[in-house]
């Protein structure tokens, strides 16, 4: 029975849900309230159900038994069934994340296509305004999850231990836990339409999010659970990078992708607590009748926006910092040149982390926040373009006069630079208070953040995906299809989103199902382009699936790259390296005479090193 842990998890989860739901109903009955009020029963039932699911899926066998003084059970499965179990191998967890979030990305993309169908012409096309807002909200949160977790959960899990020459992460069981929290999140989000959906957008501003359909509560629980996964993952990567680097892997020799994960992990470790608290406030408001946002009782709806953006602005750097890391990695290896201004880039990453905590209120310029806060937040927001510019210039400096090897991943990395430039420059208009007051809540904002996150991060995900595909699967993708995918996606992506800047300046509001007839032309154009954009993903999925099954077997180091992940077999063995590698120099010194990044370890040599140090 390959899927036994899943069955166990589901049944224990159901038992937990009934137990928790019954408990909530019982307590409400004792307090003289209506026992079968849906939302309290769902909330408490879900908490118990989540614990039941985790225990059943593997937490009990591999871990919780220890708490009762029993010996933990070892899982001896080594074939494909690992991917459906509570496996602690970071490579398995990385693949679990990548496949899960690839599927979620396709679902979110399908919702976007539905929205574009609705927006093809003024008036009702496919769905009414309520359904449109539900689709828009679900698309938002699914894609935010994809943007947060694909690189941080997928690539980082697979690659960080390999890149630093470690055997696994610092806390392998917590790592497995951080993945197995995700399926309940997906189930909750996909169940929202059954409970009336949620129409408050992924930002869930009160007062709407306090009074709308019960689907909102499912959304709040889902996001809260996802936050736990994010915090645990951040902690794990920080501890891994600090403590498990191979001998010689000093901080100044760390591959830039590892640095970007380190920086992003600092944010997800700390800021995520704020969004957890923000969501909890809304749950309390709905379930326990508190007055955080009810001004009649001294509450203030703006409190939510402050707390929410104190996480959610730094969160865009959880998305984009690892994307910078992937792109700089790919640019350096395919330009055959040392990474330009490595130390400046590291400094820029860390400055972005610090500055990202001081910019949140630029989301509140039009919310009725005190006027004297406009200027300081405008200044800090514009300040952050300095370290971001350093990263961008380092990318340009790296390809400058390089011998570019235009593989599919390199094309996507260059596409990133092109799109991110547009995304970055249009951000200045939103950081500036006078222009922001005009542009806020128009398609200009939609176009801006899609240029940074989709044109930016998703292009980086594609670059990383093609770059590491041979390492992860042991097979080579079809390069012609890869290049076809790149050009198709680059062109249709820009045709879809570039007109939205113009539509926004013309006054096209975001988050609405309808628009004035004057804007019919630009919307029809963007809709048709978006259908071609969606079709480009068919090429991607076909290429990935067919290549994974039948592609030519990949060499250990098809790119002749210097970093450590390529110095072991494709895919790497359970222990990653037969013996611990020794790091001698920078990973990026291509063409520097006599420079070596690493030397393979000698089997058994690790013992001697330990004795020598101990």
């Amino acid at each position: 029975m390959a899927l036994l842990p899943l069955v166990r998890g589901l049944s224990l989860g159901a038992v937990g849900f009934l137990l928790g739901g019954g408990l909530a109903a019982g307590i409400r009955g004792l307090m003289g309230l209506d026992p079968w009020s849906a939302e309290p029963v769902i909330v408490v039932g879900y908490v118990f159900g989540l614990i039941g699911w985790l225990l059943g899926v593997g937490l009990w066998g591999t871990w919780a038994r220890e708490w009762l003084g029993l010996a933990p059970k070892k899982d001896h499965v080594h074939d494909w069934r690992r991917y459906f179990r509570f496996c602690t191998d970071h490579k398995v967890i990385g693949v679990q994340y990548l496949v899960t979030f690839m599927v979620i990305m396709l679902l979110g993309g399908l919702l976007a296509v539905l929205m574009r169908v609705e927006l093809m012409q003024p008036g009702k096309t496919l769905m009414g305004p309520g359904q449109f807002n539900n689709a828009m909200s679900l698309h938002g949160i699914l894609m935010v999850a994809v943007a947060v977790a694909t690189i941080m959960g997928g690539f980082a899990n697979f690659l960080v231990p390999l890149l630093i020459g470690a055997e696994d992460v610092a806390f392998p069981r917590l790592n497995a836990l951080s993945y197995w929290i995700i399926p309940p999140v997906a189930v909750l989000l996909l169940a929202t339409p059954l409970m009336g959906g949620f129409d408050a957008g992924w930002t869930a501003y009160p007062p709407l999010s306090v009074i709308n359909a019960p689907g909102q509560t499912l959304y709040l629980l889902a996001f809260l659970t996802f936050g736990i996964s994010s915090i645990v993952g951040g902690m794990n990567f920080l501890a891994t990078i600090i403590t498990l680097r191979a001998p010689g892997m000093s901080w100044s020799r760390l591959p830039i992708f590892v640095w970007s994960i380190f920086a992003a992990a600092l944010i997800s470790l700390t800021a995520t607590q704020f969004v957890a608290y923000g969501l909890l406030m809304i749950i309390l408001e709905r379930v326990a009748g508190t007055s955080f946002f009810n001004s009649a009782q001294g509450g203030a709806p703006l409190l939510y926006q402050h707390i929410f953006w104190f996480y959610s602005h730094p969160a865009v750097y959880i998305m984009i910092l690892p994307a910078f890391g992937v792109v700089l990695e790919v640019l350096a290896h395919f330009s055959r040149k040392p990474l330009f201004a490595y130390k400046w880039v590291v400094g820029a990453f860390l400055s972005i982390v610090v500055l990202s905590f001081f910019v949140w209120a630029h989301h509140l310029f039009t919310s009725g926040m005190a006027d004297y806060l406009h200027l300081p937040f405008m200044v800090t927001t514009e300040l952050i373009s300095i370290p971001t510019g350093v990263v961008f210039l380092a990318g340009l400096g790296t390809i400058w006069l390089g011998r570019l090897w235009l593989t599919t991943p390199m094309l996507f990395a260059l596409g990133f630079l092109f799109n991110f430039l547009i995304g970055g420059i249009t951000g200045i208009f939103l950081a500036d208070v006078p222009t922001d007051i005009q542009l806020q809540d128009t398609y200009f904002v939609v176009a801006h953040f899609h240029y940074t996150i989709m044109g930016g991060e998703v292009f980086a995900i594609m670059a990383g995906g093609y770059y590491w595909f041979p390492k992860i699967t042991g097979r080579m993708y079809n390069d012609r299809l890869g290049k076809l995918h790149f050009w198709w996606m680059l062109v249709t992506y820009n045709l879809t989103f570039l007109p939205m800047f113009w539509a926004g300046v013309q006054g096209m509001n975001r988050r609405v199902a309808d628009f004035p007839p004057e804007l019919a032309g630009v919307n029809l154009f963007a809709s048709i382009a978006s259908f071609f954009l969606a079709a480009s993903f068919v090429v991607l999925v076909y290429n990935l699936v067919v290549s994974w099954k039948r592609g030519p077997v990949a060499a250990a180091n098809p790119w002749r790259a210097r970093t450590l992940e390529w110095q072991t077999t494709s895919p790497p063995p359970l222990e990653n390296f037969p013996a611990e590698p020794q790091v001698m120099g920078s990973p990026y010194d291509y063409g520097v005479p006599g420079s070596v990044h690493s030397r393979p370890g000698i089997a058994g040599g690790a013992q001697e090193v330990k004795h020598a140090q101990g």
Partner: protein
Amino acid sequence: MAVHAPAEARRHVSRLAINRLGLWLFLLSEGFLFAAIISSRYYLQGLNRPETLNQVLGLGITIVLIASSLSAYRAETSAAHGDQKGFSRNTLATIIFGALFLVGVSIEWREAFHQFPPYTGFGTIFFTMTGIHAFHVLTGLLALGVVFFLGRDGRFTKGASWGVEGTVKYWHFVDVAWVFIYPTLYLVN
């Protein structure tokens, strides 16, 4: 396959040091949660404080919780020195102090329901702050209970008592969080 055999041989930083780092990172993260909660009190209620707060009870449970940190510290030291008896006695004392604290909070809640119910401005803050903190105390008590029973079976020996150390550090953190919450709720004016 939680830990593959060669990993032990290959690690240059001790497992204990990695665990300590992980716990400190977790506590840093939790610190942000309490910072968010405390900041929302000042944002919504400023320095407002109802006169009906039970100051004697508030001070009482604060003293009990601080006392529990002392016994927790003694439990940790006893375990580190392999003193089985001292460990059991002090862990039990910590659990009793912690439970007393929770009893105090529930008495506080019964009164608060009448004086400033959860739908009022101050009640919202009061119940949220004490509730989230009490939840942390409860998880700490569960962990202490696990540690207590494992310790009675002789699972912690001299130099191998991370379970105790980690739990006690978490317990101290929960106490420190209360040291910030107490003046925020009871003293500012």
